[in-house]
């Protein structure tokens, strides 16, 4: 990853974080499905990035969001889990032979079907961790499960829309 890439990924995460804080903060479709759009920034970080820096990035991003959401620790815990699982899952879900050096797991690069099978389980695990922390001791397991499922679905939809609208086909970040 060169300096230019570093800046463009940093910029993308910053923009997505701002959108999350300013617009998606109080949005919940039917009070049930949350949109965690900022995860797109973590999802498409290149496959060459190792687990440890990835986890540290996720921890910091989650923590900053938590301060704004007043949910101290919840986004942080879920995002760290997300980052821990991402490289392993990417290896499992990648084609035999692995990705190329420069390849990043975005919609334009890996195609529609593979993107969904790569992103959805990760988003679901993230939501599961998040809502377990949120509902700890209050809600039932079914509530957590259904909230996680619909939130993961809604988030997946948001990431698809953003990538289709703003990412060019050749290079991931326009």
């Amino acid at each position, binding site marked *: 990853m060169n300096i230019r890439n570093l800046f463009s990924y940093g910029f993308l995460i910053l923009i997505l974080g701002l959108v999350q804080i300013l617009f998606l903060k109080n949005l919940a479709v039917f009070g049930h499905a949350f949109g965690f759009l900022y995860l797109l920034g973590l999802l498409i970080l290149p496959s060459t990035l190792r687990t*440890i820096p990835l986890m540290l990035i996720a921890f910091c991003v989650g923590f900053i969001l938590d301060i704004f*959401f*007043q949910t*101290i*620790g*919840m986004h942080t815990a879920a995002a760290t*889990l997300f980052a*821990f699982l991402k490289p392993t899952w990417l290896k499992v879900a990648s084609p035999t032979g692995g990705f190329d050096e420069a390849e990043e797991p975005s919609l334009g690069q890996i195609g529609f079907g593979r993107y969904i099978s790569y992103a959805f389980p990760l988003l679901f695990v993230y939501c599961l961790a998040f809502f377990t922390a*949120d509902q700890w001791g209050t809600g039932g397991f079914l509530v957590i499960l259904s909230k996680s499922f619909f939130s993961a679905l809604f988030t997946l939809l948001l990431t698809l829309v953003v990538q289709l609208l703003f990412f060019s086909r050749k290079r991931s970040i326009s």
Partner: protein
Amino acid sequence: MVRIFQFLYRVRAFLLFAFLEFLAIWMIVANNSPQGAAFFNSSNEWVGNALKKQADVVQYFSLVDDNAALVEENARLKQGLMALQVRPDSMPLVIDSTLEANFELKGARVVANSLRFSQNYLTLYKGSKDGIKPGMGVFNSQGIVGRVKSVSENYAVAFSVLNTNLLISAKIKSSDVFGSVRWDGSNTSEVQLLYVPRHVKASKGDTVISSGFNAVFPEGILIGKISKVEVNKSDPNYLALTVKLSTDFSKLNYVYLVENTRFQELDSLYRQSDLINEY
């Protein structure tokens, strides 16, 4: 020995993961204990400022509704004041200390509010500079809103009633039976009234108000109306009452803060007699 280090080096990613998760869970626990100090939240100046900028834009769109509500409240207050005004031919009496006002009110603007989680908080644009202290009650013209958790110089963070950690002492207005109001985390327009014994006759539509037994709220602040009466399934000695909140938490822009000027005295008395006060 070398092998141990080699092993530790190989699982370094997992070790870091465990450490970070531990840190995050510690933060969740530390933040959710009602008495625990919260270090990082939006009573922090920078975060508060950013949230205020956002509220500046968003609240512009609800100015008309806010003004209408204020005019309505003004009218009601004026009406009440007229009834209280001393007539020229009357004589002022020294009021007994039981009737003396010992609550002070302050107004504040809401700059951030959440209602989608099970622990919801409000951020208010007023802080220690304006005399806001942790523990003050928060309400608005519609009804009860919450209780202040922590303050910085210019901002304050308050528990919303829609926070599963907050208990508020309440009573049914018609029968004076008291219980505790608590949110169960599911519906943002309903709370549960707990610890009402089964022999009490509660019916749908009864008004629920703050009891005044705690040192936070004065008596008689509206909480809502009973919308469902059932027998508690887990403990059949009590009723399970559902209360429809009178406050619309999705449209909070301005709130009042109430301070009991005798809080110190009451609190030290409670401590002396080893009572744990609910709020």
